[in-house]
Structures are given as C-alpha cells and as structure tokens.
C-alpha cells in the first residue's frame, strides 16, 4: 500500500527526517510511536505533500507520489486526520462530512449518500448532532468528526495524527474502538501516537522513531516486550 524509502525532510536548514524507511501493507494498522519532536508529524506532512522532501521516495499503491502536490494526494487515496482535529468550527457536522467527501462527489459517485449513512452508523453521535456547528462538539466528538470526514473520501490509506491527544481515557478507548472497526472494514491505517500503549494495543506492527530515525520496528507484541520501548514510551520502571 505505502512504501517509504530513505525519506528526508525538514524545515529550512533543519533536517528532521533522516532516511526514514517504512511500509504499510493493505489491511494493516501500523503505528509510528515516538516522543515529541521526534519527527512524527513531519513524516505525515511530508507524505501528504505539505512539506517537500529533500531525498528518498514515497510510493502509494505502486505510484511514486514523492512530488505530488498536496491537493492531489487525497485524490490518490490517502487521507489525513490532522492533529488537534481541525474541524471546520463554523460549519455543521453534516457540512464537514460532505466537504470530506468532495473527491468522491466531484467524480459523480452515486453512492455518496450511502457513504454518509455509513459514517453515521460508525459514529452514531454524529448522526444525532448532524445539524450542530462542529465548534460546539466536545473534543471526543470533534475527533470522531475529523475521522468521519477523512473516511468520506473513501481513502485506501488513512493516516491519523495523535487522535488521543487531550481526550479523557474513556473517550480514547472509544476512538481506538473505532480504529479497530475501521480495520475490520478493510481500511489500511497509519497511526501516529505518543500514547504508545494504546497504539501498540490496536496496531499489527509498529515503528519507533527517535530524532528522525527509525530505531526499532516489529510486531506490536514484540515492541511491547522490548525493554527500551517500555522504559521510554510506556512509563514502566524496568528492573
């Protein structure tokens, strides 16, 4: 699905990503965990074309999208749920969702209504509040709206940037429940998280990023058993 090789990117003279290589297979949930400033969001911004890479390549479904401009990325089947939700606060829930599906709409996809219904089924709370302004939703509801908005584009790959940030534990649990369900429905997910325990709990595989380099990777259970991961990301005191 997604294959990244030796990706390098940064801001001005600051090189944040140092030859990142990773891949996501169809139907997988892959998580990228790491501390603040390790380069997680930079990686997503580079994949979505918001930042231009200065080396390496990004291949999505066999197509090299390294130089594809940001506005065309969604059309290629890659959607991002940004950090801090970033829903359109002054638009209604339904308008936000419709906007998320504009790629499908523009193609004249007749199933557009079905997609919307499906999102309402996945997140019943959004159906209840369809006419409410997005800005009036709670943090958890906004997160669900942001996810629903991304799913409306019917992406082959959905990327989530820190979906658990600032949410109550119970809400986090609900969000991760939806991620699990997304996989059951055949979605492919790249999940960026600081909450390593929750992320590894839901993901098939994981990568650990540190100062712009992938220093560890493997099946989630292996990473959970790794003492370095436990010490640095799970807050466990390792004796």
């Amino acid at each position, binding site marked *: 699905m997604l*294959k990244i*090789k*030796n990706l390098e990117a940064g801001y001005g003279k600051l090189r944040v990503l*140092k*030859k990142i*290589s*990773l*891949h996501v*297979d169809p139907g997988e949930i892959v998580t990228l965990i790491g501390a603040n400033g390790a380069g997680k969001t930079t990686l997503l911004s580079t994949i979505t074309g918001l930042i231009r890479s200065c080396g*390496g390549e990004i291949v999505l479904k066999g197509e090299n999208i390294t130089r594809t401009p940001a506005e065309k990325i969604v059309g290629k089947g890659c959607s991002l749920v940004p950090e801090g939700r970033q829903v359109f606060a002054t638009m209604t829930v339904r308008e936000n969702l419709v906007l998320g599906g504009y790629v499908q709409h523009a193609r004249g996809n007749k199933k557009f209504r079905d997609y919307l219904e499906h999102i309402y089924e996945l997140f019943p709370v959004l159906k209840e509040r369809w006419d409410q302004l997005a800005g009036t939703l709670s943090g958890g509801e906004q997160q669900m709206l942001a996810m629903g908005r991304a799913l409306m584009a019917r992406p082959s790959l959905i990327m989530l940037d820190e979906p658990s940030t600032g949410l109550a534990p119970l809400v986090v649990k609900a969000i991760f429940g939806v991620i699990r369900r997304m996989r059951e429905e055949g979605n492919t997910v790249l999940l960026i998280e600081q909450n390593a325990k929750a992320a590894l709990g839901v993901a098939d595989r994981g990568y650990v990023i540190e100062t712009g*380099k*992938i*220093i*560890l*990777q*493997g099946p989630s259970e*292996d990473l959970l*058993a*790794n*003492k*370095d991961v436990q010490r640095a990301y799970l807050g466990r005191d*390792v*004796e």
Partner: protein
Amino acid sequence: MYWEQEKECISRDDLAQLQLERLQSTLYRVATHVPFYRKKFKDLAISPEDISSLDDLSKLPFTTKQDLRDNYPYGLFAVPLREVVRIHASSGTTGQATVVGYTHNDIKNWSSLVARVLTGAGVTKDDVVQIAFGYGMFTGGFGLHYGAEAVGASVIPMSSGNTKRQLQIMEDFRTTALVCTPSYALLLADIMEEKGIDINALSLKYGLFGGEPWSEAMRNEIQNKLNIIATDNYGLSEVMGPGVAGECQERNGLHINEDHFLVEVINPDTLEPVAPGEIGEIVITTLTKEAFPVIRYRTRDLSRLLSESCPCGRTLTRMQRVMGRTDDMLIIKGVNVYPSQIEEVLFEIEGVKPHYQIVVERDGRLDKITVLVEVSEVIFFDQMKKQREMIELIKKRMATELGIGVGVKLVEEKSLERSEGKAKRIVDKRQL
C-alpha cells in the same frame, strides 16, 4: 507446508523493503549501543545514514570471530545484561569459545525461525522429535528444542551421546523425527545394523541434520539406511544458532530466512563479493536480533547462492549445502580441496564405510594428504589383491575429482575415532 507463509513466500520487492528498514534500524542501534561498531564506523568514516540501499552493505565493516574473542564475554551485546534472558557460547569447534546473548524477543524469533525449518522438512505437531544435539552452551539442542515446541511436536530432549539409550528411546517412544549431526545419524545407523534392529519396525520418518558439512552421497546413505527424508539445516551461534536456513522437502538447497538475515557471498581472499552463483565465504548481517546483532559476520563457511526458484513455493533464496569451512579448505599443490569433495568420492565406492579421516602432512616444502578409509572386514582381512585394487580405484577417482593425487590407506572397520557431535575429519600434522 509453511510456518509463516506470508514471510516465506513474500514477494522479492516487499522483502527488499523489509530488509532495508530492518538493516537501517539495526545499524542505528549498534552505532548507539555497541562501542565496537561505533568505533569501526568512525574509523571507516561512515554512519548508518550512509546506507540507503542493500547494495550499500559493502561499505560496512566485517565482524570476525577474532572480534568476538577480543570482546569476550559481553563486549558486543547491544542491550544491558539485565535484558538478556539467555546466554550461549559457541561450540568452540575452532579455538576459544565466544559468548552470545538473547532477549525475550530474540528467543521468540529464534523459535519461530526454527519452526519454519522444521515445518519445511515435514515436521508437524503429530511428530515425536528426538533431539540428539548437545544441550547446554551449544545452540543446537535448545534451538531445535524451542522450534519443535513452537510447532507443537512432542519433544524428547535426549541431548547427544549415550548411543545405546538413544536407540532404546527411539524404539520405545516411537520417535518420528531425528535431529542430530549427519555423522551421528550414520553412527546410529551402523549400530542398528550391528544390533539387528529392524528399521521398518521404527517409526522414523524425518531426519534434520546440521552442525557440520556433509555430502549428497552421505544424505543418500542416511536416507537408505534409516528409511527417512533427510534434510539439511544451517545456523551458527554467532548469528543465532540453527534456524538461519533450512531445506524444504525438495532437498535441493537451504532456504535462507532472509527477512531476518542478510546473506552475502564473498571471496575470502579479496573480500569482494563473488559473481552470482559462485562459491565463496558466507557473510551474514542480522536484521532483527536485539541482544547480539552482528554486521557482516564472516562465517568462514563456504557455499553459494542458488538463484532458480524452488518448486515448494518459498521465495526465500536458497544456499547450497555448506561445502566446508574456509579453515578446512586445504590448498594442496595450489589446488583448493574441500573435505566434502573427498567424501563424495568415497561414498560412491562399494565396500567403503562412511567413515574416513584426512591427514595433512608437510613433506619437505609440499603439503600432501592421505585419506584413511574404513573398509569392510572382508576386504580388510582376506584379500590383498582386492585391497590393492580398491586403493587404486580410490586414488584414480580422487585424481579425477580433485585434480591432484592423494595417498590412500585402508583401515580396519571402527578403527577411526567416532564422534557423537561434530565429526573430526581432518588431522593436520603440519608444523606451520
């Protein structure tokens, strides 16, 4: 039958991506945690960031047995000792032992890689596996043990030696798969013959052999005598132990577990890669080891890679059975001679027992080799003429196969030392 089909039949393209990812993070980890590698990288003025493709591997430094000895016991460990759950030492076939360690994850991966080898050889959860490799510091016993348990087979941890008991257990416990060195399998076969044990009354189906080089002729002999499917498997403690590579039932080369090990073949003199398919020294880089990763470890084992695809469906590249060790390679009158070539010739001659020894001596300035061969009693005692004929025949075949003349001496049956582990094939009497 596969153990991890999605890995054993991975597309070559996906494999290359996986190998690169794992290589890069292994390099970052050794550069951070192992002072030995940090220094080596610095001396060569390279950093893990310079490695953008698998072809860049050749920029990296080698690791040798001597490096392991110099860092005895824990110098090359990449994790603190408290994260190590197992310590093994090399069998010390050639000198001072070297120490290796495993984390919890390493043991888990090791088990599943050996499970792949066992499954490829035909072993399932219905089998009774008798492990006649030494337990203890040697990786052979525990490696196969954990793999067989992962498969779900019933494991008999016999360990090596005590041949009489091995046979007793084999009969009583209805062993279906035998795990040992090929030379020990032959010894067991001989003793069965001697004791008049009926092979067909045993339940044996499979034999998984490793730990020493052997020949195709020896495989045939073992298969015939024990009435089993005999497969070869390969590994070394410095890299992990058994589970690095293993034959499937096609019995035509060992599938390398390439998602965990990067294998190169180099010319041991020039250290350059050999042309594809040529024989050279196997060099291995570990891709997933946590406690004891090695970069470009020179195994001193000689083999070559087979590029043709295998009918079994595995996409993992095969290596030919190990022909010998670079240390065992004899240079006689400028010709490279491997013990396995000598073995191949001997096995084809009727009346010759599968036990032999190669004696290397220095005669003036020239090296010469004499092969001591056990022959059946009938020939040894009764017929001088037949003896002379046999010596001539062996000499002639050797000259054709090796391109040099060798001395041949016939010895009485069972006069050569028997080994319960790795056979001692070469006696070097040179004072170098």
